[in-house]
Each structure stands twice: as C-alpha cells, then as structure tokens.
C-alpha cells in the first residue's frame, strides 16, 4: 500500500494555465523522500489502528488511566476515560427515528462526535477513522496497479439516496436501518469483540471496489460517508488551493478517491477544496509537484492564498 507513483512520462512539454511547464509527479528515490510522500497515509493508519488498539486494549487487556478504563466500546458508541460519552451521530439519528427514547448519555456522545467531525472536516471520519478505509484503499491501490476499468458508471450521488433511505427505513421498520447492515460497524465490532461471518461483507466490499467499481463503497454507496459529507460542507479545516501555482497536471485527481472534488475551476474561485465530499486524506498534497495544495483553515483561503504554502510548511515542520 503506498501512494500512487504512476508517473506519466511527458513526450512533449506542456504548459499549464499559469504558463509554467506541466511537471509530472516523480516518486523520490530516497526513503526519506518516499516517507514524506507517504506521510499522510502513515498518519492516517496510525490514527485508524491506534484508535482500534485503544478499544482492543481496554476491552481485552484492561487498559486504564487512573483506574478509569481508557476507551470502552467501539466506533458506534464508546466511553472515554470512563466518563466522556462518544457515539456515532448517524447511528443515533437512525435510532432516534425509530421513535424509541434514548438515554441522554448517547445523545450527548453523538453531539460530541458530531462537533468534532464538524470541526475537523466531516469526512475526515472516512479517511482517518473508518476501518473500512483501509480495505477500500487497498482495493483502490491494487486496482490502479492492475489497471482495472470500471464495469459501469454509477452516480456518486447515489449515496445520498442511500442516506435518505436509511432514515426513511429506520422510521418504517423501527430499527436503525443502516446500523444493522453497516459493514463499518461490523468490521470494527468483530475486530474488537470476536470474528464472525463479518469478514464476508468486508471481502464483498473489497471485491466490489477492486473489480466492479472504483471506490465503489466509499465513493458511491456509503450513507455514513454521505452523512459526514453534509457535515463537511461547513467544516473549518479544508485543503487550501494555491491557484497561481497549479499547472493542471492532474496528478492529484489520479490519486483522489473523490476526484470530483478537485474541480480546478471551483477551487481557483474559493482557494480551497470546498466540497464536503473531500475526505481530507491528504493524498493530493503529497503528490502535487507544485505544492499547490495544503491543509488549512477555511478562513485562510480568503485572506491569503499564498500563506497556505506557509501553513503547509509549518505543518510539515511541526510533524
């Protein structure tokens, strides 16, 4: 698993809209260079696996701090330090729609998590926390390696239909519709509480993503992603876009799991990747040969587009 290093060899020198020659992304030959390119993927895996480890450690090995269990539960709902409730806001919304009264605890937990993801950027969930992301990333990487073409085209908006359906079915059937079939909860739960047949669903997603449709699950169907996509529309942390430096080389588009969000025209207008569908995975940042892209705050995009570079270098130094 690594960042795409599929470099396009230019036969002729093309110029970008900014007049500069379009340079391809070249994978550095040194390990340090490579690690630099892979840095976000490493960070993301650390966050994903680390949180999983915290859950596992608390359940199975009794990890605790000052006598309080560290992190009990799973991504559906959990308790941090034995006091702070956390809960999946989408799951709670569904249960709410089943018209059953909920304990305050889980509502507060959902609120806290919603707030966190609203601040961090909605679909940050998808690329930084969701365990399925590792499966779909692997499928996506293999797919590029093996140059597998999509079997058919499916609108990425279909997930919003699935989202709506989840909510409607929750009302109708009286049970949390997506929560009951969610491969995400299934995978996470079974990793923590014991393996069952859940791996079949996960394998299903892997095969679907690998052979049928690129980013089939996360990019097209997952209502949880869609839910966070809605949240992400107002998220303060965004990927900033330094318009003058972009040569439209499209290296970023090639690696992006949600390529639609890299609309250069729109990005140039607002100075950032504004779409809520962006998962803030950071892949585009590290393949951009021109350092056009960088993490930043939504407010920065309007003040100074150039400072974004600074922010990026600051971030880099800080890490």
């Amino acid at each position, binding site marked *: 698993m690594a960042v795409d290093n599929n470099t396009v060899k230019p036969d002729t020198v093309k110029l970008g809209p900014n007049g500069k020659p379009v340079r391809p992304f070249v994978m550095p030959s040194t390990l340090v260079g490579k690690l630099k390119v892979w840095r976000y993927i490493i960070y993301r895996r650390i966050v994903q696996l680390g949180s999983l480890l915290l859950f596992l450690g608390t359940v199975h090995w009794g990890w605790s701090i000052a006598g309080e269990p560290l992190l009990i539960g799973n991504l559906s709902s959990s308790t941090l330090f034995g006091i702070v409730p956390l809960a999946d806001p989408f799951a*709670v919304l569904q249960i709410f729609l089943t018209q059953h009264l909920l*304990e305050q605890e889980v509502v507060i937990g959902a609120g806290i998590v919603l707030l966190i993801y609203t601040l961090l950027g909605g679909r940050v969930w998808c690329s930084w926390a969701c365990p399925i992301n590792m499966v779909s990333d692997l499928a996506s990487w293999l797919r590029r390696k093996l140059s597998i073409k999509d079997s058919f085209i499916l609108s990425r908006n279909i997930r919003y239909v699935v989202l709506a359906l989840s909510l409607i079915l929750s009302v109708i*059937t009286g049970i949390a519709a997506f929560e*009951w079939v969610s491969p995400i909860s299934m995978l996470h739960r079974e990793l923590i509480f014991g*393996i069952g*047949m859940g791996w079949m669903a996960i394998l299903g997603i892997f095969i679907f993503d690998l052979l049928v449709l690129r980013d089939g699950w996360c990019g097209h169907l997952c209502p949880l992603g869609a839910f966070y996509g809605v949240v992400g529309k107002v998220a303060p942390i965004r990927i900033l876009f330094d318009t003058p430096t972009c040569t439209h080389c499209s290296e970023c588009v090639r690696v992006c799991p949600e390529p639609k969000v890299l609309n250069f025209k729109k990005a140039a207008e607002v100075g950032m990747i504004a779409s809520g569908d962006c998962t803030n995975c950071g892949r585009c940042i590290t393949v951009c040969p021109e350092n056009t892209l960088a993490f930043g705050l939504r407010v920065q995009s309007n003040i100074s587009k150039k400072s974004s570079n600074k922010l990026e270098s600051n971030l880099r130094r800080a890490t």
Partner: protein
Amino acid sequence: MTSKSSRREFLTRSVQGVALTATGGLVWSYLLQQQAHAAPHAIRPPGAYDEAGFNAKCIKCGQCVRDCPYDTLKLAPTGEMVAIGTPYFIPREIPCYMCEDIPCVKACPTGALDHSLEKIEESRMGLAVIDIENCLSWIGLRCEICHRVCPILDKAITIEHHPRKLSKHARFVPLVHSDACTGCGVCEKACPTEIAAIRVVQPELVQGKIGEHYRLGWKIDTPITQEFKAPKRKDGKDTPATGLDYLNQGEI
C-alpha cells in the same frame, strides 16, 4: 421534439430511479426484518427491552460486554443466529452471575438495557424450563444441582417431594417459578446431564396463559361484593332477533 424527448427521458429516468430506490428499499427492509427476527430466543443481558425495543435501541457498542466481570456477554458476530452485533449470552457456556450492581446495564449508553432496573432479581433475561424426561431429579436420582446453585433458590426453583412408587425413596422434583426466575442460566450451566435438562429460553416460547375470563379461586381472596352496583337494564327494542338462521334452516 428534442425537449419533449429529453423530458420523456427525464421522466423515464426519474421513474426508473424511484423504482430502483423502492426496490432497494424493499429488499433492504426485508433483510432488516430477517435480521431482527433472526433469533427471538437469544438470551439478552439483564434489563433488555422486549426484542423489538431492544433491537431498535441497541447501538451494538459492546460496552455491556466490556463491563461484564464474568465474560458472560458477547456481541453476536455476523452469521450467528442472533441479531447481528447485539449482546447476548449462552448460559451453558457462561451464565449471568447476577451482580448486585448490574454493571452491564449501567454501561449501556442508549438505554437498550433499561436503566431503571435496580434489583438484579427483577430482571427477566429468560425463563428456565426443565425437560422432565431427562432431568435426573425428576427420574429419582438425588441431583437437584439446579436448585442448590440457583442464586434465588426456594423462590425461582423449589423442590417438591413426590413418591417414587418403585421403592421407598422420594423423588426430589425441581420446579421453576416464572415469577422469580430471572433466566440467569446458572442452573443450565451447572446441570450435569450431557445436554442440559434445564435450559433458559425466552418465556414466550414456552409459557401459556390462562383465559382472562377465569380466575384461580384460591389465589387471591375476593369476597362477595357488599355494595353491588346493579346496572340499569338497557331497552332491548332495537336489537334484531337472533337464532333465526338455525331455527328456520333445513328439515325438522
């Protein structure tokens, strides 16, 4: 022409989209119903709501599982005959030992396990039933392990002494009482037969109910009402005659 055809195409596609969504929705809800009814006999943690309420409220986070000191509870892995991801236990493996402080219920963030349950004795996880054909005590052996290990013995399980007839030994017959049995399953775990002869099941699978129209005369004393409130007779003029069908039908 073009606008017409594009409009038709749009309409067609919209209808198709709706149809697809509806089909998907139907299949999905079918799956959900299947899952929800996967195993109505699963033995739930103490304080669990009725199956529908529990299925709706349980967020499958496993916090009850983590807080169970005896590793009794587990989350149903996919493929088990229990609604996916929900907590349950198999008494024959590890029963509920009825902690006085009920940590599993306290851990539940959604209230799928009822937080108003204060005394573990009041929980109803299931009901123990005895297979009297294979129960050693019913047969006449001096076993009655279920009775002696029962955390609320003499209430949930009592012993009656019946004559054996074949010899001058009494049979020590265990009986389960649904008004006290919590379904903790300690008896099922302890039962020494190869396959447990006492097992915890959901009460609705085994419990009958006598008619509402009948009361057991010796259970609650209801003396003859002293101040009887005699209702006024209703005027029966408008009621149609009955019994005519039979009276007028066929040959005599």
